């Protein structure tokens, strides 16, 4: 795939219909995402194995504050908190008494969460984005994102927008396992308390720092 440095540039140069469709899908997807300056919702996640049997259920709360902050808090069936503060992504598993710290920039294609806080350019670079036609649902748009780079644990991510709000994610891993995440109580562009996008590492947990440059100034 062409790794044009900007979506607009690729649109002008590339006249092939497919590419045109793709770049307009990228543009449309980026617009939808960029319209959500903040987003907050409850989620229910269901994992199905390749035979369609539900093997896992979890629920919790999800919020985004663009450009690059998000919070994914699993409350049911187990506890987990993922916070992206713009530089780092903290994953806290209370039961496992463990916090993992990673560079936010490195994770884009691996974490569907991050694609919702990325800009058009980063998205076009990491994913082939196409729109899926939903004839019967006028106010819905379905996008399919397939990672361009190898070594990704997901084959594809589908994102459904209803009335310009993210309503559902559907992720397929490379072994036929499917995960559906449905959102409810969705609030868009409300003022959010920015404290929810910072994370202080609690006492007594194993800290696994998989960034290249370790935490310079210790935990804020």
């Amino acid at each position, binding site marked *: 795939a062409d790794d044009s440095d900007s979506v607009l540039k690729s649109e002008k140069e590339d006249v092939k219909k497919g590419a045109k469709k793709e770049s307009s899908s990228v543009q449309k997807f980026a617009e939808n995402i960029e319209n959500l300056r903040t987003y907050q919702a409850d989620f229910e*996640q269901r*994992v*199905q*194995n390749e035979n369609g049997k539900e*093997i*896992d259920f979890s629920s919790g709360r999800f919020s985004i504050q663009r450009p690059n902050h998000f919070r*994914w808090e699993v409350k049911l*069936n*187990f506890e*987990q908190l*993922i916070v992206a503060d713009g530089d780092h992504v903290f*994953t806290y*598993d209370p*039961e*496992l*008494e*463990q916090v*993992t710290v990673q560079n936010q920039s490195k994770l884009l294609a691996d*974490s*569907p969460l991050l694609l919702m806080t990325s800009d058009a350019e980063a998205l076009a670079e990491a994913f082939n984005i196409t729109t899926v036609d939903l004839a019967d649902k006028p106010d819905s748009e379905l996008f399919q994102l397939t990672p361009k780079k*190898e*070594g*990704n*644990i*997901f084959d594809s991510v589908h994102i459904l927008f209803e009335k310009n709000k993210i309503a559902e*994610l559907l*992720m397929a*891993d*490379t*072994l036929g*396992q*499917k*995960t559906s*995440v449905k959102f409810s109580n969705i609030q868009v562009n409300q003022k959010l308390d920015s404290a929810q996008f910072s994370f202080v590492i609690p006492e007594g947990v*194993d800290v*696994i720092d*998989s960034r290249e440059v370790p935490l310079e100034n210790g935990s804020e």
Partner: protein
Amino acid sequence: CQTNRPTNGLGGPASLETLNHWELKARVAIKTPEESVSATLDWQKKDSDFDFHIYGLFGATYAHLIQKGHEATLKLPEDRVHYHQDAEQLLYQSLGWDFPIDALSFWIKGLPSGKSGEQFSRNDEGELQQLTFNGWQVNFSRYQTFSGYSMPKMIKAKHPQLGLKVVIKDWEFLPTN
């Protein structure tokens, strides 16, 4: 999960060692020199057959190891699927992991596996506390009652190339017929 204890057919509670048809769900943290992952483990066992499935946030499979009769299958991300008669050999050949999955099926219940070279110690209540085997250092803690049996909720297993921390969420013993 079942609260009544499986019986040994004579009305008495079946001993934990003999219960070989079970399902468990756990949270696991896996640490290798390259990466650290926290995930969900679904592990089903029926005598020598088992299904050992580790998947991460958003349900993406990290590793899925199945032993059925004399065929072991290991599924890894990006459609990498490997086969062998024996699961432990398969893990070693495919991932270079010296992972004693059979011994782990005893440790997970808070029982020594009885394999040669294994050494262990018990706490004052007689519960398995620490164990060493083939380069693995295993610690057992937070004993609580699952399905009528007192078993560890947390198991930490350390090996030079692999660290594993398991927190059990749910145990279910299934009828043996």
